């Protein structure tokens, strides 16, 4: 108990674990404290029903930075990514759109809807690769402070500017439009097929309280486009054994490097003496001393719950209070004793092995958002559905399946009523919307787990149920994330760092915040900064 750690990391989510692994590898004595009995934060696998292993929250992986996979040797620690092939979108008119990883096949499929779009798809793909290439280096960068006179920060900004100048004019135009336009406006420039635009725009709203027509969503499309597995751009996959395997692999890497990890160790308070973090106090009353505390939980919990206003500058508190969470999504996990049969493409074909996107038209997507704007869950929600047990039979009993539905919109703040009374109605809306396309689904449900944004907050400690620890909107990105002037993983409390998704470059199973924060922390401890 009197043991003193170099760094105590708050939260055993994937970012906290990545952070701890890098610190331990650099020789720090590190302790990770996790509130729950299970590691991984929102990246977990749980056996909700005997034999059925649900990736309860986060369900696909693509964004995890390749340098992290490499440096932490995650495959050696048990990480295996299985491919998720394509996206199947059933339409209301009985047709469908089915894009797969096989490029030629996808082209033929799109040509069935529009020849022009099939051509444009090629161009679009190339343009997005260029855009991704421009943005990627920014992901592993500590955001500079544009209001400071620190020449290093200015130099960083200048470097981005110079790289921008080197882009071809059409890529410059794309880049600016990508940062400012709505997903639909952006896609309108390339495509005419409504269902194609609706499905592609869908990745622009994930985790935000925005509609496909809201400016700013084009960037979120790119954010989700940057995933890579084995260097293949824009491919998504499952972790064998469920998403929790990713966290377990990272945890194993951290332990091997010497990090200590404790579960069921909820923190009551971050101890602050004279403006400096000196350790943490657990809910059990146990005190742990540390030279540095690094928090991977969101800033509202870190500062307003675990520290308190009186230790913090007023401006900072004000900024934290207006940092926007407002979760907008829910999750419905199903245990099935049979596969859904889609009206538009019957049979248990390969289309069930990829993502099934319930995004039949732009208007459908936008109307789903309108519901949320006025404080109700979408009556006809957008859904991203996967059946991982088709690819990884180990997660369900033989002949049975696990189905995961990511659902938007489900606003945390309901205008009328409370989530505890509307959970089942929300679950029903999800099943109804699915049954419109696959009517037999109702007969196969053995068990249904419905997570409202309130549940996501309660279970995972994600404030207001926001899956990214705060919206990915332009005013909350890069040097503005999570608060102006505090985007460099440091905080107004000396010896306290942030390393979660609320810091640059944001959420998703990316690991970049944890890794970036580790490099800042290590730099500071080497004395580059007091």
């Amino acid at each position, binding site marked *: 108990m009197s043991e003193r750690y170099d760094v105590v990391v708050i939260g055993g989510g994937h970012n906290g674990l990545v952070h701890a692994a890098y610190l331990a590898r650099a020789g720090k004595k590190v302790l990770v404290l996790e509130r729950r009995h299970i590691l991984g934060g929102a990246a977990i696998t749980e056996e909700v029903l005997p034999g059925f292993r649900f990736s309860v929250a986060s369900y696909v992986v693509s964004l995890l930075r390749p340098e992290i996979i490499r440096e932490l040797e995650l495959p050696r620690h048990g990480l295996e990514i299985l491919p998720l092939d394509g996206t199947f979108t059933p339409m209301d008119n009985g047709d469908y759109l089915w894009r797969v990883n096989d490029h030629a096949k996808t082209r033929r499929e799109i040509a069935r809807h529009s020849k022009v779009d099939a051509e444009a798809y090629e161009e679009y793909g190339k343009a997005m690769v260029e855009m991704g290439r421009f943005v990627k280096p920014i992901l592993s960068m500590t955001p500079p402070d544009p209001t400071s*006179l620190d020449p290093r920060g200015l130099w960083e900004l200048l470097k981005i*500017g110079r790289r921008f100048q080197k882009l071809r*004019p059409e890529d410059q135009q794309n880049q600016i439009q990508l940062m400012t336009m709505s997903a639909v406006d952006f896609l309108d420039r390339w495509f005419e097929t409504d269902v194609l635009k609706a499905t592609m725009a869908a990745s622009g709203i994930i985790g935000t309280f925005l509609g496909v027509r809201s400016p700013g969503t084009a960037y979120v499309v790119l954010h989700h486009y940057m995933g890579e597995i084995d260097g293949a751009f824009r491919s998504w996959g499952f972790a064998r054994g469920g998403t929790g395997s990713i966290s377990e692999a990272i945890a194993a890497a951290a332990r091997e490097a010497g990090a200590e990890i404790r579960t069921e160790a909820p923190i009551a308070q971050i101890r602050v003496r004279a403006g400096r973090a000196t350790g943490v106090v657990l809910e059990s009353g146990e005190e742990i001393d540390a030279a540095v505390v690094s928090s991977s939980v969101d800033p509202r919990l870190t500062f307003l719950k675990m520290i308190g206003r009186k230790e913090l500058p007023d401006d900072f508190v004000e900024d934290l209070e207006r940092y926007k969470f407002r979760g907008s999504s829910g999750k419905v996990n199903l245990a099935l004793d049979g596969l859904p049969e889609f009206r538009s493409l019957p049979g248990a074909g390969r289309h069930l092995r990829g993502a099934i996107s319930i995004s039949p038209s732009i208007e459908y997507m936008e109307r789903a958002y309108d519901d949320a704007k006025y404080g109700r869950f979408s009556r006809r929600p957008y859904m991203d559905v996967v059946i991982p047990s088709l690819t990884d039979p180990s997660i369900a009993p033989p002949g049975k399946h696990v189905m995961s539905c990511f659902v938007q919109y489900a606003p945390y703040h309901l205008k009328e009523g409370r989530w505890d009374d509307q959970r089942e109605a929300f679950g029903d809306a999800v099943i109804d919307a699915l049954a419109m396309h696959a009517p037999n689904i109702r007969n196969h449900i053995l068990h249904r787990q419905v997570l409202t944004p309130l549940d996501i907050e309660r279970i995972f400690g994600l404030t207001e149920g926001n899956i990214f620890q705060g919206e990915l909107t332009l005013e909350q990105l890069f040097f*503005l994330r999570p608060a102006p002037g505090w985007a460099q993983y440091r905080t107004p409390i000396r010896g306290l760092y942030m390393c979660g998704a609320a810091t640059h470059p944001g959420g998703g199973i990316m690991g970049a915040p944890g890794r970036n924060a580790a490099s800042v922390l290590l730099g500071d401890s080497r004395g580059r900064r007091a």
Partner: protein
Amino acid sequence: MSRAGRRDVVIVGAGVNGLVAAGLLAKAGLRPLVLERRAVVGGTAVTEEFHPGFRASTVASTAGPILPAIERELDLRRHGFDPIRPAVRVFAPSADGHALLLFEDPSRTAAELAAFSKKDAERFSQFHASLSRIGAILTPLLSMTPPRIDRPGGGDVLRFGRLGRAFRALPKRDAWRLLRWGPMAVADFAAEWFESEPLRAVISARGVAGCFAGPWSAGTTANLLLAAAGDPHSGGPGGFVRGGMGKLSDALAAEQDPEFLSNVSNLRSTGTAAMLHFALSGLPDFRALSGKDAAGALAGRIHIGTEVDEIERAYDAAKYGDLSPRPYCEATIPSLWDPGLAPAGGHVLSVRAQYAPFALKNAIWTDRRKELESAVVRLLSEHAPNLESLIVGSRVLAPPDLEATYGMTGGHIHHLEHSLDQLFTMRPLLGWARYRTPIGRLYLCGSGTHPGGGMTGANGANAAREIVRDGRRRT
């Protein structure tokens, strides 16, 4: 045909920006010729008779404000330009018979707000100060040719440097605000400052004026900041012109010799604002003003829409290609301070109604003008029940009419949507934001260029400067 002989510059369109460009080019010693398709100069800044004896500023009702430098240089006041600033900037009645008033004098506004929320009253002076500071550093942007960011030259670096210096001179808090605010939804922006819904609604409305966006659309705060660059006043635009907007155009045209020709080509855009003008036999009685100085309260902009979500719902309809059943309306009664616009005792009520999209999904506009008019009358009557009995004539200008009459493609009052991807160095296109075009010696000087619509005249002045500069380079 060659009556005028060879001119140095031919300007297509005698709107405010065309006229400003012509005026400044003439001052620089060039011989410009302005060609206007219609029989009246001014483009959207015109005063027209819409009903016998009743005249209104048919499209734009508030005057920019026109940049002071342009006003001075072209000596507009000598030519009859007489701007008016009523003491009340905004009057916003709510359904319960209350009203929110924003005054020219911010301390009066703060006192007024105390009735809604003590906290808001206190915040208002901070809001006014912060917006004034930020507006002040944005003002020079209006009269600046956007630097090239695609292939910057030495001059561009210098211009960027100047921008950077002005930015750094801001208090740190304001500098961060400026960076954060641009991309935000104006509804979020208003909510950050204030808690009372009517005030939030009035502020939000500034971010969507003329735009195909609702208050919850990200980036709408940029539109508010753009307006604040021209007039950083916390109450929003508040300048009018005696005799209507046409007087501004007349003053600009005073020393010129416009000719009537055809062919104006504009940029692509989709308008969602309709203009409605009503000839009234008397002043409507607003319930919220019974027993008060009605003429004073109604002299500024009348904002109809008590809740942010009301405005957002009005926008929803437009997204799906339909008319808003309850549009967001901004009205003015210019005859209050300019009795000459209407016969004795009569009044002119001009309304900008949003949202009325250019392209309707399952209908054509000819069938819908009456419907829009009834919706607007019904909405205003909720606040001024005797309105309908006062109407003696009306004119509806839907976006297709704005296109047909004033030559704005899509009927968009700003020519091109004011959205983040179409402002500053991207307006109208990245690489062509410097008033020049791919055609040598063809320039753009209208609202489709930086700094966009809004009657500042800055587009025309900036383009004229570039034309003169290029001319010098050639000689």
